């Protein structure tokens, strides 16, 4: 499309910004969920607390978090960190639930055998439980990835939406093409991230290449628009 060609700098710049802003929540969400999920799995009480807390947090619509976080965090209003923190909260919320279930799904027998063989608790976690929980963690991470990329565009309403700018600008100028391009590029990023995650998964968990185990993602995705 000609408009795309003429405005490629704008679109490309926004795409880069979109990638930049959405990567951090995904990674932080993943890293944070491991200890939290392990805690939730190990100690039933913390599980209830965590699930309730995060359950509440992500029923708050993303727009609400974007608008109110500056007052809570004390950050500057237009600082992209507000959007990143909000998206990270959602990422953690989804991942914690998924991680808890992922660790839950590791068969008790396997854990007991590992202990019997002589693994210490920590060593057992990293060499047995974590890898076995991998597929479910990955499935949840893919959901987090798609959600983050999509929700980021709503940040345009607070001046920090990366590709979401194309939605608002295109809408304001009565120019569906621009809006569509924003949608397409957002989709492209979502697909790229998804494929990357699948690739990383195959790399780190080669044993899953053959059998496609059921990866149950036990997390409703709210967070709204």
């Amino acid at each position: 499309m000609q408009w795309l060609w003429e405005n490629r700098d704008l679109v490309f710049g926004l795409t880069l910004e979109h990638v930049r802003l959405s990567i951090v929540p995904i990674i932080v969400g993943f890293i944070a969920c491991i200890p939290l999920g392990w805690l939730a799995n190990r100690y039933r009480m913390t599980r209830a607390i965590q699930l309730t807390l995060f359950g509440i947090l992500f029923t708050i619509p993303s727009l609400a978090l974007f608008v109110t976080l500056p007052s809570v965090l004390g950050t500057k209003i237009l600082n992209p960190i507000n959007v990143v923190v909000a998206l990270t909260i959602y990422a953690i919320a989804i991942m914690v639930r998924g991680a808890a279930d992922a660790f839950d799904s590791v068969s008790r027998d396997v854990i007991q055998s590992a202990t019997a063989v002589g693994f210490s608790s920590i060593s057992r976690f990293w060499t047995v439980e974590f890898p076995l929980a991998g597929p479910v963690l990955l499935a949840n991470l893919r959901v987090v990835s798609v959600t983050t990329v999509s929700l980021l565009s709503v940040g345009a309403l607070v001046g920090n939406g990366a590709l979401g700018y194309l939605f608002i600008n295109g809408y304001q100028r009565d120019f569906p093409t621009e809006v569509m391009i924003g949608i397409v590029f957002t989709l492209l990023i979502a697909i790229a991230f998804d494929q990357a995650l699948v690739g990383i998964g195959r790399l780190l968990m080669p044993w899953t290449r053959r059998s496609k185990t059921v990866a149950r993602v036990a997390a409703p995705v709210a967070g709204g628009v």
Partner: protein
Amino acid sequence: MLFVAAILFIFDPENLLGDKGILPRLVDHLLYTGLSLGAALLVGIPIGLLIGHTGKGKNVVIALTGSFRALPTFGLLLFIILFTGLGLWPLVFVLAVLAIPPIIAGAYSGLDSVSRETIDAARSIGMTEWQILGKVEIPLALPLILGGVRSATLQIIATATIAGYVGLTGLGRFLIEGLAYHDYTIAFAGAILVAGLALAADGVLALLQKLVVPHGVSRGSARTTTKSKRRSIPSAMTRAPITEG
């Protein structure tokens, strides 16, 4: 503190009624949710049941619905409005699109979780396909199907806040007003209201989920199928019933 101010706002009787009141907006919000959920159910349940029961077309449908999930709802809504003008139906359409993937996933994985032996047994005693579906598969799958509905409902309630940006009402108006006037109290109040509504709806559906588990089916049945079934349910968005304790 912000939270306190927001709570006070919500319980201030002046804010409950009238053009910008909490109650009318709550009702509208429920209306948008109901319509979108209804539309999504109308489309999603049959498709989910179909691919669950026959096991065919699974990959195509899953891939399609997966990409639905990646669609930025906000952008899609604005795009459609440029063609249709403002109105209720673009919103309902977009929210339904958002809700269909979890509903299909729930229906599909619900049926998937019913063991083949049970179905074969039903077939062998002479049940027709429809009878199997109605008397065996669906009742056994209900918890998971409802899990999908629950997930869809949560998403719709939270996303319906966007209605406030495109000339409609609903609880999202508090967010947009908070944004326009840079009034954190109103925005926070809106956030609390939507979160509250979502939690309430989730609670009701969770209760329903527990109630529809048929006699003789343990609550943990959905979970055990995670290990015993080898079919792939990529990025299934069902909410497994959380078995507490």
